[in-house]
């Protein structure tokens, strides 16, 4: 158990060192990088099975016991996130290796990519607020490199927005950690969940909303999302895909973790539901107005974050379970959508809907990959998005929050509309002259594997929802989490 919970962080870090040593040999770098990512995914799956059967696994790093030392804690939520993230990381990595003439051939890609993977894994596993900050920094610093690495002159402004907003959020995060330490004298999350109960409710609420805002910037919720649709599309496809699939979801994970463990409330939070509704609608309306595949998808990232916040806002087991399931579905589907967008760009040289036509006739395989992912994003049965949204809607009915449920269904309808816009714009019609290059088979295979995974999430919806429900019950009753962490590396 100890080993399983440590490896997801250790493997990518080892890969960083080895890929740096293999600097002059790209083939070796690729082999190390892919082996490490596949290994991490395998470990994550084993960890999920172990945690689901045996309960929370905690590691006191360096043998320093929990409230003082750094703890790595794997519960069902962390393990589930690690598995989804591992699958997305592997798919995108294979896609990046297969895609010629990109970033990946520059030798810095693999070390930086593995650094990002290490940061993401550490963020999911840490049981310590300050280490969570460190994990975010590792992840974000790597993302700054990836997004600015090949930015063309015109893109630099958008990527600078990304970097500056990221740094401001990090500064606020650090200030928040300082406040928490000043109020309680600890940064261990399990310890905090006990000690924050004694803190003045006003201070506690203020801290709770401060963290909600900090992670809200990272997760791109309304009104803090403005940086995302401008900056994401400027990066190369693999980079955009992994940012879209993972980075905002790490923010959502942090929101779920801190709000349930540190700042639990009684009953649904109307304010959070309001934010969720606005995020969904503003995001999807932004998407409808766009004419470029990656920009449309970037606004959808924002819109879909609203659903996750809605699930958390109900603050019931069913609501949080639905949110968790929805995050897992989004990590996979969002990654796939951006990879398909990249395939379209590879085939035609552009992502502007105006300039692409008739992909269906010229490259039907891209259409086959796009369709299930798009319908899943819109939430049509039997795809994974439907399972997630159905669970969310049921949770909303149980909580008696009709308005926000109505808003979410309306946003789904608009999502479907903007997916048909891509379909009609790029796939129908007579093939345009610029459809010249068939994407390499490995790129198609990598995308296809993630599509299959997303369909599998839809088919295995029931067992997954049960798993998510167990994860959510753990979150709302953190006694086991606290005991495992403070019990000292059991």
């Amino acid at each position, binding site marked *: 158990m*100890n080993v399983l919970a*440590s490896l997801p962080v250790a493997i990518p870090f080892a890969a960083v*060192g080895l890929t*740096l*040593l293999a600097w002059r040999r790209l083939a070796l770098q690729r082999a190390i990088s892919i082996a490490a990512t596949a290994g991490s995914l395998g470990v994550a799956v084993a960890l999920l099975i172990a945690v689901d059967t045996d309960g929370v696994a905690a590691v006191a790093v360096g043998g320093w016991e929990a409230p003082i030392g750094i703890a790595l804690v794997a519960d069902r939520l962390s393990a589930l996130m690690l598995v989804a993230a591992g699958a997305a990381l592997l798919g995108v990595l294979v896609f990046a290796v297969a895609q010629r003439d990109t970033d990946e051939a520059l030798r810095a890609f693999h070390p930086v990519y593995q650094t990002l993977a290490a940061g993401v894994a550490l963020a999911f596993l840490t049981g310590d607020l300050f280490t969570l900050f460190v994990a975010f920094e590792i992840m974000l610093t790597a993302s700054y490199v990836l997004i600015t690495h090949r930015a063309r002159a015109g893109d630099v402004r958008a990527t600078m927005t990304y970097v500056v907003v990221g740094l401001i959020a990090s500064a606020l995060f650090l200030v928040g950690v300082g406040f928490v330490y000043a109020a309680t004298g600890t940064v261990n999350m399990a310890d905090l969940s006990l000690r924050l109960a004694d803190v003045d409710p006003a201070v506690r609420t203020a801290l709770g909303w401060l963290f909600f805002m900090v992670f809200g910037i990272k997760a791109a919720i309304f009104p803090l999302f403005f940086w995302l649709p401008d900056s994401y599309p400027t990066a190369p496809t693999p980079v955009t895909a992994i940012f879209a699939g993972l980075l905002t979801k790490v923010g959502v994970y942090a929101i779920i973790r801190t709000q349930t463990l540190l700042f639990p409330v009684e009953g649904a939070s109307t304010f959070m539901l309001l934010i969720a509704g606005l995020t969904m609608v503003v995001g999807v309306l932004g998407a409808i107005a766009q004419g470029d595949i990656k920009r449309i998808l970037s606004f959808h990232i924002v819109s879909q974050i609203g659903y996750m916040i809605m699930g958390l806002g109900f603050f019931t087991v069913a609501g949080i379970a639905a949110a968790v399931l929805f995050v897992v579905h989004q990590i996979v589907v969002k990654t796939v959508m951006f990879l398909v967008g990249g395939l379209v760009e590879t085939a035609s040289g552009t992502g502007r809907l105006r300039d692409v036509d008739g992909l269906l006739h010229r490259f039907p395989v891209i259409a086959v990959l796009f369709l299930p992912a798009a319908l899943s994003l819109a939430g049509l049965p039997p795809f994974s998005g439907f399972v997630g949204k159905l669970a969310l809607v049921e949770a909303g009915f149980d909580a008696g929050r009709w308005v926000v449920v109505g808003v979410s269904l309306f946003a789904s309808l608009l999502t479907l509309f903007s997916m048909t816009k891509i379909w009609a714009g790029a796939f129908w019609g007579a093939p345009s002259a610029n459809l010249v290059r068939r994407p390499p088979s490995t790129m198609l295979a990598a995308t296809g594997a993630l599509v299959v995974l997303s369909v599998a999430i839809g088919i295995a919806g029931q067992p997954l929802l049960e798993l998510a429900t167990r994860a959510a019950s753990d979150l709302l009753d953190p006694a086991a989490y606290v005991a495992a962490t403070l019990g000292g590396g059991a």
Partner: protein
Amino acid sequence: MRFRPSLLLDVGARSMVPTLVLVSLYVLVVGHDEPGGGFIGGLLAGVALLVVFLAGGAAQVSRVLPIDPLTMVGAGMSVAVATSVAGMVLGAGLLDAGKLELDLAWIGKISVGSTLVFDAGVYLVVVGLVAMVLTRLGAREETAP
């Protein structure tokens, strides 16, 4: 503008650099029980490189380095990770530290912790990064017309 070395800085650097490197190694070794460690030691060695840079420019920094900074970062990272997982292989946990007591007859007893190896890795990463900053970002100024 061509780089013009200054005699004063050059002579100063010759005496400062070895001292700084020695101090940085001392700080690295005592880091286990006393203030210090790989990060601070690495920064001190980085300061030594900075002095070299001021006196002789980026080219001089590349010349005094025994190995390529990238290799240094990669090796340091690998060493640090290897030590942190070594604990797991030996049945303890991530980053668990071991200690080796050596009795060196008349020199006395010394104890070497596995943390020293970890710190040495950190040291290499920090020195390598400083060297990269100096050689990559510092080179521009000299090659510009």
